[in-house]
């Protein structure tokens, strides 16, 4: 792991960056760590247990400050970074993006383009547990699915942790805060919760990179990531959308092909 610590130390010592965003050991699991002093770099860790998507901090100027910032990025984080960059949310010159390979080598990316090429070698895989659940749901009848979600979402108390954890939810004003008109019931209620999740999913269409942070963050453990994961699969099949490889023409919902399917239109 020391390669990463070396790198971080040198970056801080040479004053290339003002802070390194990475992971440190937490009480139960690794947690995000904003390392600002060279002497603290020893705390930095990186392993398969590091799952928070650190890209979420990169859209928060108040956290980044004015200086250059380094971030230790996992694969999902890299995908998010590429997507954010495509959506004009990141300043290339203000970021040092690092990742650690299986052989524990540290890679520093020259730019976003380089990340994209790097990502091409890693096919996004949905882990079996999730896939099974998706298949289970698809196996169900419409009514069963509906009951499943209504029950799951009846636990939701609108803490918006899912939103806070998602790197793609960077709007200054989220749709749920729009009140003329009040698109989404603001209070926690089955309808409001459903409306919120549908909005969330629609807003993540072609943008979700499947990091799973949303579900991870949910205090009551609602498998909301299934929505976006399922959508990711569909969009992949329908329009060839690949997470972490944005289509330069625009978002899946802001573009079209004349030959898009319309078998459902009368």
């Amino acid at each position, binding site marked *: 792991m020391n390669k990463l610590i070396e790198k971080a130390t040198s970056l801080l010592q040479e004053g290339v960056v003002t802070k390194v965003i990475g992971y440190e050991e937490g009480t139960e699991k690794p947690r995000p760590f904003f390392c600002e002093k060279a002497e603290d770099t020893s705390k930095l860790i990186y392993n398969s247990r590091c799952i928070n998507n650190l890209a979420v901090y990169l859209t928060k100027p108040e956290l980044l400050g004015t200086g250059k910032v380094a971030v230790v990025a996992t694969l999902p984080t890299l995908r998010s970074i590429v997507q954010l960059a495509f959506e004009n949310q990141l300043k290339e010159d203000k970021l040092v993006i690092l990742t650690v390979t299986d052989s524990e080598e540290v890679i520093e990316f020259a730019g976003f383009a380089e990340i994209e090429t790097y990502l091409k070698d890693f096919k996004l895989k949905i882990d079996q547990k999730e896939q099974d659940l998706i298949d289970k*749901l*698809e196996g*169900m009848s*419409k*009514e*069963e*699915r*509906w*009951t*499943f*979600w*209504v029950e799951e979402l009846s636990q939701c108390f609108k803490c918006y942790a899912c939103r806070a954890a998602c790197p793609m939810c960077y709007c200054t004003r989220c749709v749920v805060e729009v009140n*003329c*008109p*009040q*698109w989404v*019931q603001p*209070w926690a*209620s*089955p*309808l409001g919760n*459903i*409306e919120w999740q*549908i*909005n969330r*999913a*629609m807003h993540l*269409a072609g943008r979700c990179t499947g990091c799973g942070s949303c579900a991870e963050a949910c205090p009551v453990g609602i498998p909301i990531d*299934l*929505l976006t994961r*399922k*959508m990711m699969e*569909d*969009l992949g099949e*329908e329009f060839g959308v690949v997470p972490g490889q944005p289509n330069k023409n625009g978002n*899946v*919902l*802001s*573009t*079209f*092909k*004349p030959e*898009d*399917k*319309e078998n*459902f*239109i*009368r």
Partner: protein
Amino acid sequence: MDNITEFEPKIVAFVCNWCTYAGADLTGTSRLKYATNFKIIRFPCTGRIDYMLLLKAFAEGADGIIVSGCHPNDCHYTSGNFHARRRWVVFRGLLDFFGIDVRRICFSWVSAAEGGKWADLVNSTVAEIRELGAYKEYQKVAGYLEKEECNE
């Protein structure tokens, strides 16, 4: 077309101003008849139609929805309908995964010349929705708390 005896579904249609709205006008001028429990809302283009409006309509007690605009390549704004079509492909998939009854949303292309098609579409939709009955599942969830005034 007036069998008031049985259940009368509430149906709204979101249509574009240039093709379907005009088509519906033609239905009128041709004096073709359809059920009264069916109302049209005018939009500049199908591209303008927000998927949230559909959900809101269900929450507000709609049993069925028609979304209709210009045929491909006829869009007054050249590609609004193409964008809409994309949106509906994605939205339908999601709704279905949610267990929301996509049969209750009928998408169609109706041109300004297709007054007849519009009448048929409305009548068949009304019939189908009548078959399906009121959209209780959704309304139950919507009415979970006594209805609040959502606008304002």
